[in-house]
């Protein structure tokens, strides 16, 4: 090994990244090269001195539990936060050349390029509602299905490519969702044929018929055509960058359906929640045509939470804060004080992120007054303001 080659590999040697053969070569060179020896010794020394950096500091007690709690809250928002607004069509039918369900809430969703004269079914669905109306008025989900047939060509279409399932509704609580998901997953695993994809689709967690407003889900059994799923439009979001950074192909959806609790399943389902402020019409499958549901506080809260989350991820903190506060009011109406408190905490975080610290303090104080038992949420709100609160006497 030459001196230059050795120099190149000293860092790898210091960090143990060389295979045995190359490590032996470098070490062999080191024995006869004072310069390399010196450099290696310097690397080792500074690494030893830097040892305190590897001595990991402990986060505050119970931090992992708080993460798990937040994950459950996240799962709740994702899975049952869109009641009445999620379009989820499932179940099997012969598509007769169905191109793609076109669900128009945030934008056009296209499953795959249409052949010009190809017959198709068009399922148009969107969600109607508005911020003001959602709180006071019924959210009406109307569904229509426009079908254009051409049996001859449709016969050539893959019969299982798309599926329609009438989804049950969201659970009343996260814990119910957890239980439902567990039970259904176990059941699905027991019944699923081995040939199914490894991440066999269990039903969307915590779905229960009796509580359900009209809800349709569009599921696509094969991932031949990418469907623009929820969250894909948030271009500047960190995960999008991540996908790009780590492996470009990761930005593609997984083929396997994910129907489980905490991983937010985005691959095969359309979960589209309209902004409460967005006026939209709904066209959906005939199975749900004419069905309407009155928006409960839970429905309104879910809509606000979903929209707030989107606004937050988009960096629109003031809007997000406003929506979280509305969500908190709605949650309070339905006696879900824990969620209400967390929504206020999120509002504090958003206001703080927007630099509106006075407003953030007011909301935090409101949170403390109204939900004194919700210590974790209050703690999160306080944490959001920690950097701008007047210095407390240091408790050393």
């Amino acid at each position: 090994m030459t001196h230059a080659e050795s120099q190149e590999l000293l860092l790898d040697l210091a960090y143990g990244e060389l295979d045995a053969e190359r490590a032996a070569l470098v070490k062999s060179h080191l024995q006869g090269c004072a310069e390399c020896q010196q450099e290696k010794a310097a690397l080792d020394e500074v690494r030893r001195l830097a040892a305190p950096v590897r001595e990991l500091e402990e986060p505050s007690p119970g931090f992992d539990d708080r993460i798990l709690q937040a994950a459950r809250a996240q799962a709740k928002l994702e899975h049952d936060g869109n009641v009445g607004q999620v379009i989820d069509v499932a179940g099997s039918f012969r598509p007769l050349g169905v191109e793609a369900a076109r669900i128009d809430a945030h934008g056009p969703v296209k499953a795959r390029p249409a052949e010009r004269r190809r017959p198709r079914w068009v399922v148009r669905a969107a969600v109607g509602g508005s911020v003001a109306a959602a709180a006071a008025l019924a959210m009406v989900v109307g569904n229509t299905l426009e079908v254009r047939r051409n049996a001859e060509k449709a016969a050539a279409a893959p019969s299982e490519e798309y599926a329609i399932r009438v989804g049950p509704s969201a659970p009343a609580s996260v814990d119910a969702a957890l239980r439902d998901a567990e039970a259904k997953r176990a059941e699905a695993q027991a019944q699923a044929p081995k040939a199914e994809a490894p991440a066999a689709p269990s039903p969307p967690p915590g779905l229960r018929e009796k509580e359900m407003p009209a809800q349709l889900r569009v599921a696509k059994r094969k991932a031949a055509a990418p469907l623009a799923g929820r969250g894909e439009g948030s271009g500047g979001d960190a995960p999008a960058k991540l996908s790009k950074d780590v492996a470009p192909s990761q930005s593609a959806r997984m083929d396997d359906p994910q129907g489980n609790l905490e991983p937010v399943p985005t691959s095969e389902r359309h979960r589209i929640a309209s902004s409460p402020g967005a006026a939209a019409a709904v066209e959906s499958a005939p199975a749900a045509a004419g069905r309407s549901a009155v928006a409960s506080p839970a429905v309104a809260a879910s809509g606000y939470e979903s929209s707030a989350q989107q606004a937050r991820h988009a960096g629109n903190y003031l809007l997000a804060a406003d929506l979280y506060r509305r969500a908190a009011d709605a949650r309070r109406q339905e006696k879900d004080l824990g969620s209400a408190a967390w929504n206020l905490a999120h509002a504090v975080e958003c206001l703080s992120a927007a630099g509106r610290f006075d407003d953030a303090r007011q909301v935090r104080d409101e949170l403390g007054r109204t939900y004194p038992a919700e210590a974790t949420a209050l703690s999160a709100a306080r944490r959001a303001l920690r950097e701008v609160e007047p210095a407390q006497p240091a408790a050393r």
Partner: protein
Amino acid sequence: MAAVRGDASDEVLMVRYQRGDREAFAMLVKRYNKPVYNFVLRQLKAPALCEDVTQDVFMRLVQNAAEFKHEARFSTWLYAIARNLCIDQLRRLQHRRHPSLDQPLAADGEGRTLGDSVAAQHPSANAERSAGSSEMQATIIRAVEALPDDQREVFLLREVADLPFRDIAEITGASENTVKSRMRYALEGLRKALAAAGISEETAAEEPDPGVRLGRA
């Protein structure tokens, strides 16, 4: 639910989690919350935000779990999320309208900064109080935190996250040679900073605090 073995690899846990196994997720959180927290802590240098950002890392994991296709190591993927969130947060901190954490509180521009005040409130906030409260350790950590961003990032991904240079290159979008070059600069910068502070292996050996574990590398 099948029990999740504590020695299951990250990737196995992730597969289980992708299938809905909450226990696997809890295991990943338990395994990674502390190192990710420390990575964020050293990157942001704004201790008050670190737990929130770390929590956000795991929330992003939840949101994007379905997209993880096991083409990269789980830890690489997770730290890529952490790295991106730190960059976002640093950018946000720079553009905030409220006073900078580094801005002196006093009108004359001297003395204690808002960041100092914040740090004083946080139990694990600043270097002075970390890992045994040794002044030498504090100096070392400050020296790391004073490294240029690109060097500190590589240094922390290697030393705290324990990622190989190849994975760091993948995360940062730089070539492996560039990553190694930054690492060399980082180590050299640290060596000089510590030498200027009078810290060497000889002085470290005299340090009574057991927190400094020389020879552990």
